[in-house]
């Protein structure tokens, strides 16, 4: 009988979380907002995507509700890495909750410069690379091509001692190939997945609802897609997979953990039900007790590194 299941998770290079429940980049700012969230339930906070210089973000309209989901095209509004390192990190250093900085850029050099600025900064627990950004040179997103994804991962790996998570975009023909490429390039873990590209059109105004035309779709609408991506990736890589995409309930989170995720990130739900993190944490613990599972990795229903063709 397991009375006190161990909810800690290891995400590589010494990054140890007390809970498998994290909050996803862009849904929790830099951790200073959303006071309603019970932080004791969280394993880590992932910050807003951070670039070398401050960015103002896109013109409105930036978000739109869609069936069981939402589109966003915020445009990486952020204060720039220097502000994050000087102003936010010293406050994070006083917390008992690790903060992972999500890093974005539009060139390999920018990713490297951001990583270098954060290396060794107290309060920064790890980096999560957002490789869904377009490369200014090619116009393609780094994350859609295994070679480009590997190049940016390798370059950042060389620039920092911090644990390195790479957040995969699902807008690709073969997410497994990208996952393998970033694993080979030195990623300690992958987050799967970022948002799906979608759009919505205002028929009265006869134009796309969000000003950029397209946006990233999140929420329960994408959960089955995200779950399948995690299922595929977890079978093919040897590093931890962090499941993210439309998780709203304990049952949703359990599905990702059963599919092979080592941890989960909550995104859109943070906007709606701040108490979800605590419910999901407790739901996972309760399930582990019920099923006699001592640790999080005992949840996965399929041994890792078994090749499957689903």
């Amino acid at each position: 009988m397991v009375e006190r299941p161990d909810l800690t998770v290891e995400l590589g290079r010494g990054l140890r979380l007390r809970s498998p429940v994290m909050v996803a980049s862009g849904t929790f700012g830099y951790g200073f907002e959303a006071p309603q969230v019970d932080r004791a339930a969280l394993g880590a906070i992932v910050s807003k995507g951070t670039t070398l210089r401050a960015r103002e973000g896109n013109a409105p309209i930036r978000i739109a509700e869609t069936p069981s989901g939402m589109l966003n095209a915020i445009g990486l509004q952020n204060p720039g890495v220097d502000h994050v390192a000087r102003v936010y990190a010293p406050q994070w250093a006083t917390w008992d909750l690790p903060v992972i900085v999500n890093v974005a850029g539009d060139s390999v050099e920018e990713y490297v410069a951001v990583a270098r600025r954060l290396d060794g900064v107290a309060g920064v627990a790890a980096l999560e690379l957002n490789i869904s950004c377009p490369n200014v040179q090619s116009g393609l997103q780094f994350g859609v091509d295994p070679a480009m994804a590997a190049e940016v991962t390798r370059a950042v790996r060389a620039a920092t001692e911090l644990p390195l998570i790479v957040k995969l975009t699902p807008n690709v023909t073969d997410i497994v190939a990208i996952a393998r490429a970033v694993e080979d390039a030195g990623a300690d873990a992958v987050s799967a997945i970022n948002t799906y590209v979608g759009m919505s059109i205002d028929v009265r105004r006869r134009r796309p609802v969000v000003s950029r035309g397209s946006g990233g779709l999140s929420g329960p609408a994408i959960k089955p897609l995200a779950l399948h991506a995690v299922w595929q990736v977890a079978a093919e890589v040897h590093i931890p997979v962090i499941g993210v995409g439309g998780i709203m309930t304990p049952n949703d989170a359990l599905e990702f953990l059963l599919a092979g995720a080592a941890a989960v990130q909550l995104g859109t739900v943070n906007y709606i039900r701040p108490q979800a993190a605590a419910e999901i944490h407790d739901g996972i613990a309760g399930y582990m007790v019920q099923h006699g599972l001592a640790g999080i990795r005992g949840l996965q229903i399929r041994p890792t590194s078994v090749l499957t063709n689903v």
Partner: protein
Amino acid sequence: MGGAVELVVSHPPSAVAVAPGQFFQLAVNAPHTILRRPYSAAWSDSAGGRIGFIFNVVGAGSTWLAALGEGDELDLLGPLGRGFDLDGKRSAICVAGGLGVAVFPGVIQALVARGRTVTVLQGARTAAQLLPAARFAGAEVQVATDDGSAGQHGSVVDLLANLLSHREQFPPPFTGEGQGGGVDILTCGPTPMLTALIDAARRQEIPLSSIQVALETPMGCGVGTCLGCAAPRSAGGYLLTCQEGPCVRADRIEWDAMTDAFHG
């Protein structure tokens, strides 16, 4: 008021905490919806522990809210954002277009309670969509309708322009902030009405700093994390409606960009 619904919520802590112009994020449980719905409190009764919301039934969320019955529970987050700055001694003109009037009952009550002279200019498409003047006790009320079914035939901005052209009603020198004269204008309504109001104010040499606008933008979280509720700022970049608003001084907004974003 045709088509509009008034939802009364009993929640003493919120009724005490809310300031006129602040909003709440209401959770809705309608199929396939996901985000909370931001609504300004129309009024609050701190002694009775109640808050009122007035809205049109336009989509799944408002339909779900409108179907709530007595005794049903509602999940609300708030009060959020910044309300109107109601301090000062000058006359106040509240200009409401369409359902923008929903924010004003509590605002006007608070202005009257501060001893200020208040004029309400309310515009709507048709008479049935007007909030009764009785909801604005202590204020002078003028109305305009697009179809002429009540009050002046035309726009509420015409009422304002007319009022401002009779400046002798207001103490001189009528140069706005810090001058001890003039008026404060508080407004809420559709973007075209707001931009027409801004144009009218500029023509009458009313400083935009004496105008406060309750902004309406699409909103995600309501607490500053999603960065979804951006509005173009005159100083460049964007402000978040949920944090720096919804009530902001009109000189802080880039109105041409506002029109392009929300009405182009």
